[in-house]
């Protein structure tokens, strides 16, 4: 085993027992980035000197006994989350040279624990896409097959963890942008409950949907990191004050008597046959662990994607109006103020971003607002209610994270609607606000990983960790990309 295969828990233990220094650990990861990132392209920027200096500070803390569970742990951050003094491009030309002026709340909370940031990761422009092909700086490759997409939009963060370039990473999930790339890259990916984590310092995409999530190698590692970033924040009025439990202490090894729902609408036609087989085998693991499997129904599921592709673009068109060439970012000259707007936005934004702004502007414009936006918000309530009702019968639900395997570059980028359909199993959770986690659950014949999505009621992330951990232990899947 190479040092860069290490889990957070092991690394933390080794650092505490002085079996390894933070400098050695961080240097190994920086070295790995040098070795593999030319082919994977997970990172948009790497902060080698800062990381090594940070590692030395961590070693100082370990020596004088003031270390924390994350001290010295190398991590990566999606480029739409602000880290003071570091570039934050969000994968867009319009922010190519933008340096973040402050730390996002999640970064501030992590920094209190003194981990070491390696760099900022690649993504679809402003988190719009399912493959990283919409990054203005070129796509990230799937570490398991460099001809295939890593998923998106947080593809860089997922690939970085999968390729051993970081022990954990942060991403953001608006319609599946943490869970789907986690599934495609064979790592764990969490989307918390809407309101669970502060979005202060996250570039806004769809404000009623966005959440910051965590990528890691194991469910336990995910629980450790999540415990540090969860909780309310006075700088994000949508973050709610529910207490944050000790997730690690609530992990389980068996699932005796736990009721697991299989939403029948998620197991219909149109799924890759091999993916279906892996998921069915995973459900048998849950049974072996003592869980009771039940079919449940989320009757409005088929409308989730439509609701999402109205609400999200409307919010996008409002949120991205701030990129106007006046206060920061790219600014192109024009004869009039209007021309500055037109020139800057038309040149600085990519085609998928513009497409979504256009849909959003249309669906919220006079005469169309009631037919599209208002209607979508009403149907959204029905979808949310479906989840609430189903969770009166079961404790958690399981579905595939994605109906398909990672596709080859270019395969779906010609037809936007085809790409949108890839979000089919993940968007429902964002629309309803419930949390979900993708856990590696097997591999296909061609060696590509498959993810199982576990869903819990609002603010019950501990159920995701407990059941995910038990599943992961029982499955004992050992996968690693050949790079």
């Amino acid at each position, binding site marked *: 085993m190479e040092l860069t295969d290490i889990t957070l828990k092991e690394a933390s233990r080794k650092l505490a027992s002085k079996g390894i220094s933070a400098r050695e650990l961080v240097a190994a990861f920086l070295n790995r980035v040098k070795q593999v990132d030319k082919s994977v392209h997970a990172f948009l920027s790497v902060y080698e000197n800062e990381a090594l200096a940070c590692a030395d500070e961590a070693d100082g803390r370990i020596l004088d006994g003031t270390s924390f569970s994350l001290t010295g742990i190398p991590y990566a951050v999606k480029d739409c989350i602000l880290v003071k003094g570091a570039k934050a491009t969000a994968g867009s030309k319009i922010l190519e040279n*933008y340096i973040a*002026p*402050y730390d996002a709340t999640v970064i501030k909370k992590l920094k209190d624990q003194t981990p070491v940031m390696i760099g900022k990761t690649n993504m679809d422009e402003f988190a719009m896409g399912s493959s990283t092909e919409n990054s203005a700086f070129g796509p990230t490759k799937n570490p398991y097959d460099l001809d295939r997409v890593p998923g998106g939009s947080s593809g860089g963060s997922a690939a970085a963890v999968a390729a051993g370039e970081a022990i954990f990473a942060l991403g953001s999930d608006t319609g599946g942008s943490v869970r789907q790339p986690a599934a495609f890259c064979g790592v764990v990916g969490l989307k918390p409950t809407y*309101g669970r984590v502060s979005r202060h310092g996250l570039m806004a995409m769809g404000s009623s949907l966005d959440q910051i999530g965590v990528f890691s190698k194991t469910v336990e590692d995910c629980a450790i990191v999540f415990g540090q970033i969860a909780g*309310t924040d*006075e*700088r994000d*009025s*949508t*973050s*709610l*004050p529910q207490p944050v439990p000790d997730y690690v202490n609530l992990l389980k090894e068996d699932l005796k008597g736990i009721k697991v729902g299989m939403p029948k609408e998620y197991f219909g036609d149109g799924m890759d046959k091999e993916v279906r087989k892996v998921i069915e085998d995973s459900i048998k693991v849950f049974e072996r662990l003592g869980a009771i499997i039940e079919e449940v129904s989320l009757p409005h599921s*088929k*409308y989730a*994607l*439509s*609701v999402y*592709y*109205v609400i999200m673009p409307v919010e996008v*068109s409002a949120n991205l*109006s701030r990129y*106007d*060439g*006046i*206060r*920061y*970012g790219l*600014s192109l000259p*024009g*004869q009039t*103020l209007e*021309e*500055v*707007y*037109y020139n800057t*936005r*038309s040149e600085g934004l990519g085609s998928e971003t*513009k*497409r979504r*702004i*256009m*849909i959003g*502007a*249309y669906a919220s*414009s006079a005469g169309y607002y009631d*037919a*599209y936006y*208002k*209607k*979508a*918000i*009403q*149907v959204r*309530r*029905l979808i949310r209610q479906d989840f609430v009702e189903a969770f009166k019968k079961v404790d958690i639900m399981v579905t595939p994270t994605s109906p398909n395997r990672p596709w080859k570059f270019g395969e779906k980028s010609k037809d*936007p*609607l085809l790409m*949108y359909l890839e979000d089919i199993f993940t968007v429902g959770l964002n629309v309803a*606000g419930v949390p979900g986690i993708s856990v590696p659950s097997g591999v296909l014949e061609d060696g590509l990983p498959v993810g199982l999505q576990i869903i819990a009621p*609002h603010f019950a992330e501990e159920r995701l960790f407990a059941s995910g951990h038990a599943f992961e232990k029982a499955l004992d899947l050992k996968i690693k990309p050949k790079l």
Partner: protein
Amino acid sequence: MAISQEEVERIARLARLKFDGPEKTKLQTELSAILNYVDQLKEVEAKVSESEFETEGANLMRDDVAEVLIDREELLGRAPTREGNFFKVKSVLD
């Protein structure tokens, strides 16, 4: 439902985006396809109360106390053009 070229131009104006001829034609097709897809929402009977934007809890407000979150220079320094402590823009009124 198909989106006309004029409609594409109207929306582009609202969004402060400009497109050339071929781009407009492509957008006509793409936007029509997406809007046709989401049109399935029309078949749902959804009678929901007026409080559409209701969230879980009440609005969470912090005390109205001034604080320095970010240094003013840090922010102004990112502007493409400024004058003193102001962002400088082209004249707004003719």
